[in-house]
Structure formats: C-alpha cells, structure tokens
C-alpha cells in the first residue's frame, strides 16, 4: 500500500507509484488489483513518479498544504493550462489556495481578454500581474505614452522619469510617443532598458522632434525598423537625409508640414530595404514618384499615397513603372486621379491584392471595368465615397471571384433637387441612389467575400441584408 502521508493523514485510496496502482479492498467486492496503465489522460505520455511528500511540486505557484502533495501525477500535455493539476486530496478539510490565483488557470484564461481588459486585470493582485506580464500576452500591441505621463513630479518639485520596468517585462516591440520633445525622447532612450536593441517600431505623434533629435533617436535605437512620424512639424527634409537608416523596412509620414519631393528623394536613396511606405503629403508632386530606385522596385510591396492632392495620372505612371511589385496600393484622397490612372494600375500592377480608391471623386464605372478585367488577384477593394459608381460598376465587380473585402461606404450622392415635400434623408425614396438594391444584390456572386461594408448606402435595405445572409453566409455585412 502507499506509504503513510505526512502527519499520519488517512491515505488516499489510490496512489500511483511508477504507474502501478494498488487498490485497497472495496466493500463493493472489486478486490485489490494492480493496474499497469498510467493514469487517465496519459495515453502515450510519460508518467512521472510523484514528488516526495516533503516538497511541493515546483510548478505550482502557491505553496500547498502538505496533505495535498500526494497527487503529483502525469502532466496533461499541450493544453493552455500546462503542468500537473493541483491536487485536492480527501481527508480532513485542508485550506486550499484560492483557485482564482492558480497560475495554470490564469495562463489559460487571460487569452480571452483584450489589451485594455488585460491592463485592468494586471491591477488586481500580484499573482495576476505576474502571469499577465509575460510577452506572449502583449504581442503586436503598442503602448501610447503621452509626454506628461513620462514624468513623476517629486515633492521637491523636480521631475523624474517614470519607471518603465513594467513595460520592459511585457516585451513591447513598439512604442508610440505623443507630444514629446527631443529631450523627452532622449530621456526615454536612457530610461527604458530595452531601448537600444529591443524596440522595433517607433511612432511619434504631434511631437516637436527636430532634425537633431531624429538623428539621435535612430542612431541610438538600433533595433528600430519601423518608423512613423505624424503631425511633426519641426523636422525638415534635411533631417531625413541625415537620419534615415538602411535597416528601415517600414516608413509612414503624415501631416508633417516640411515634407515634399525632397523627402521622397531621401527615402529612395537611403532605404533600399523599404517594404512599406505610407505618405500623406499635400505638396508631393508627380516627379517625386519617379525617384524610387531599382532596389525599392524589388522590395517595396505596399505604397499608400493619402490625400496627395498634387498627384495626377502622370504620377501613377511613375509609380507603376518604378514599383512594379506592389501588392497593395492606396490612392485614397488623391483627387486628381481619374479612370485612366486606374487603367494604368490595372494593366501594370498585376500582383495587386489590395487597392484603395476611396475619396477619389473622379473614379467612375470605367475604372471598375479595368479593375475587374485585369486584377485577378485582387482581394480587397475600397471604394468609399466614390460617388459616381453605379449598378454598372457593381456588375463588373460581381465577376471578381477573388474579392474577399469590399467597401462601398458613403457612395450615395445627395440629390441636388429633392422631390417636393421630402427631405433628402438617407433611405428616402426621393434620393436617387446610384447603387440600387438590385445592383447590390448582384454581389452575391462573390462567393469568397468575407467582408462587405455598405454604410450609408440607401440601396442597402433590410431585405438586401437578409438576402446576403442567405446567399453569402460566411460574409460579414456591415451597414
């Protein structure tokens, strides 16, 4: 029989010993027997002998009362809750550790929470924080830190930089700093343990970073390969020339007043490994789009030109020639681009999987014919606020069997002369939607469609949604 438990507690009826079990004689007549199999859930799994009674199993977080030690059995494999289950053992009532701090359970449970929820949960108690502060729970998340949050004001009135250990523990790969100065960024680099090598992405918003600051930041933070600058008006194109590093693979610049063609020149010369470029710049012209080099022609797969009001179809010519390998292109808000520009895209960028023509008021059904004809790999198409598209355009789209996501938001034109007595409300029969219910219903031919956004589309009636849910059951349709 099993050895006596510590303190002479009544022994549990069955105690595994190297896979052999002996059952005590049972009143129901089963008699003693030996079982040579392992314990349950033990198929093809190695069986561990139980730990000696004086030591708690090392994987359990909270120390167990001694009587509970006998159950260290084969660990269930490959589950979110790894490790041997804690073992409540019968006998005199023992004080069990609160199950809500059982780390095995917590390791499984925390996957069900969003980032914001996890931030709340980390404040519950030390055990929860300890489990939560593992990098696996924060992968892909970027903390946004405002300048004022970076300092504690001491009783003496002085400012001290906050302790960022809690961020280092979670292994964030990227940070977004808002409203920071050159000095703040230097303090961040000095005070964050992982700043020199561990940070891969930096985003600066509405900050006063200067050319010198940019240079220091990229020089010191050697791990940064993704950079975003938004609303930063104190650096110039000269700053880009002096600070951009060849290791950068992703760059996004938006709403920075000093960015124009020379910025693209710097980008094209200094970033041979650029995979993704996002540019929102009112003053960039067509010529700059010819600056991209052969290296970028090879490596750049995503180009977003957002509200680049000066870009015309000539600019598009330059793009399709210098960046032939694009798989994602956005011309959102490039209001001078017309159907001819889209024709060039369709003919030349055959690898495109995503195309965004939103807020291009000159795009008509013709553009959609070109797209449907030539872009056979297109999976995502954004046509928000393309107010000239009609049912004809929809019929072209309905032939694109590769489409998975389609955005047709706010495509309705408000009619100039509403019928007498009726206000031009959305859905009003007095409005003349160019995308009618019938036209939209043709989209059911897109069997691969997973997402369809029809916000503010008067033709999107409840009947239409019902029709979609019947014929495109896998598609998420949003109104």
């Amino acid at each position, binding site marked *: 029989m099993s050895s006596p438990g510590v303190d002479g507690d009544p022994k*549990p*009826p*069955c105690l*595994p010993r190297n896979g052999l*079990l002996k*059952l005590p004689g*049972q009143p*129901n007549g*089963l008699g003693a027997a030996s*079982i040579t*199999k392992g*314990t*349950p*859930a*033990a198929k093809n799994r190695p069986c561990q002998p139980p730990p000696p009674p004086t030591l708690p199993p090392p994987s359990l977080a909270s120390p167990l009362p001694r009587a509970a030690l*006998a*159950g260290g*059995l084969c660990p*269930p494999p490959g*589950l979110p*809750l790894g490790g041997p*289950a804690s*073992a*409540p*053992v*019968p006998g005199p009532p023992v004080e069990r550790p*609160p*199950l*809500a*701090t*059982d780390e*095995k*359970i917590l390791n*499984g*449970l925390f*996957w*069900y*929470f969003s*980032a*914001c929820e*996890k*931030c*709340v*949960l*980390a*404040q*519950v*108690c*030390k055990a*929860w*924080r300890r489990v939560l502060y593992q990098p*696996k729970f924060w992968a892909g998340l970027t*903390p*946004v*830190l405002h300048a004022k*949050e970076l300092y504690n004001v001491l009783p003496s009135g002085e400012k001290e930089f*906050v*302790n960022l250990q*809690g*961020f280092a523990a979670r292994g964030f790969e990227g940070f977004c700093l808002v409203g920071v100065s050159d000095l703040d960024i230097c303090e961040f680099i000095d005070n964050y343990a992982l700043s020199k090598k561990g940070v891969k992405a930096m985003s600066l918003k509405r900050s006063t970073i200067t050319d010198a600051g940019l240079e220091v930041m990229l020089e010191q933070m050697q791990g940064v390969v993704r950079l975003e600058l938004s609303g930063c008006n104190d650096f110039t194109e000269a700053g880009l020339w002096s600070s951009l590093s060849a290791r950068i693979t992703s760059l996004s610049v938006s709403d920075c007043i000093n960015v124009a063609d020379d910025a693209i020149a710097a980008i094209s010369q200094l970033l041979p490994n650029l995979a993704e470029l996002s540019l929102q710049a009112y003053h960039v012209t067509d010529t700059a789009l010819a600056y991209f080099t052969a290296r970028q022609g090879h490596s750049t797969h995503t180009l977003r030109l957002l509200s680049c009001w000066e870009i015309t179809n000539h600019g598009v010519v330059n793009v399709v020639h210098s960046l032939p390998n694009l798989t994602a292109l956005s011309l959102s808000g490039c209001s001078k681009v017309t159907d001819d520009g889209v024709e060039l895209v369709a003919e030349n960028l055959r690898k495109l999987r995503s195309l965004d023509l939103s807020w291009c008021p000159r795009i008509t059904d013709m553009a959609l014919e070109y797209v449907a004809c030539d872009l056979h790999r297109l999976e995502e198409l954004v046509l928000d606020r393309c107010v000239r598209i009609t049912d004809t355009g929809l019929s072209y789209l309905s032939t694109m069997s590769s489409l998975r996501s389609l955005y047709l938001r706010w495509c309705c034109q408000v009619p100039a002369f509403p019928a007498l007595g009726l206000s031009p409300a959305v859905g009003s029969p007095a409005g003349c939607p160019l995308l009618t219910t019938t036209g939209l219903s043709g989209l059911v031919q897109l069997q691969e469609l997973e997402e369809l956004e029809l916000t503010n589309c008067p033709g999107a009636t409840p009947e239409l949604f019902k029709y979609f849910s019947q014929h495109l059951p896998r598609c998420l349709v949003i109104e």
Partner: protein
Amino acid sequence: MQTMPSIKLQCSNGEIFGVDTMLEDLGMDDEGDNDPVPLPNVKAAIFKKVIQWCTHHKHDPPPPTDDENKEKWTDDIPVWDQEFLKVDQGILFELILAANYLDIKGLLDVTCKTVVNMIKGKSEEICKSFNIKIDFTEEEEVQVCKENQWCEEK
C-alpha cells in the same frame, strides 16, 4: 460513432463510476481490463457534472485544433452550457481543473469562457467577487496603475 466499452473510473473519494460515453484519452485499450481507472484528482461530485456534460455533448464534432495562444471570443457559449454552468464559483474552478486533467477540450473551453465573462468591471470589483486579497503596497498600486493607463486611448 462507435460505442465505447463500459469503463470504470474511480474518483478521489473511492466512488466508482461506470461510463460508456466517449471520454477521449483515458488511456484505455481493449485488454479487457476491468479494474477501475483511478482519478485521484477528481472529486465524485465534479466528475458527475463532467459526465453529464460529456453525455449531452457526445455527438459533437471534434473541436477544431485552433491556435491556443491567440485571442479568443467568449460570446458563443451554447444555452445548455450556460445553464449547466450556473454553479458555485468553487465548482466552476474545479470543473476547469477537471476538464484540463481529463483533457476534455470542449468543456475546458466553455468553463474558461464562463469564468472570463464573470471577470468584469474594475480591478477592485474583481478582487471582491473572487475573494482575492489585494497584496500591492500603496506604492506598487500607484505604479501598476500608471503603467496600465496607456490602453485607454487609441
């Protein structure tokens, strides 16, 4: 679905159950071994509930092998399971442990989701409803609060 031979399982208090519903991975083969398989980690009361759940779900298709280290949804608990899991918190946690130990993925999933749905509100409220002692010092509490503000704004 093939009928499993009747197998005997013995819980932590010695009680023996004969089970012919399909419980995967009990390490049984057909050697005709009639001796009960011991489950020293599972109390009889809990095991009864487990059997009840398994019996109701015995015709379920096998759960998909999804990536376990990925964010998950909690709003898809079937109504029967919701009613079934309206139990004491202690029992709910015991069910999680049992489902984990017995490797019953479906039960583990719904019990976890049920607990997750109970974890709502501010951290103080969570402490109260789960009887967790707040063990931060005042300083630590301020620190952990500060370093978790960033999620509130996008």
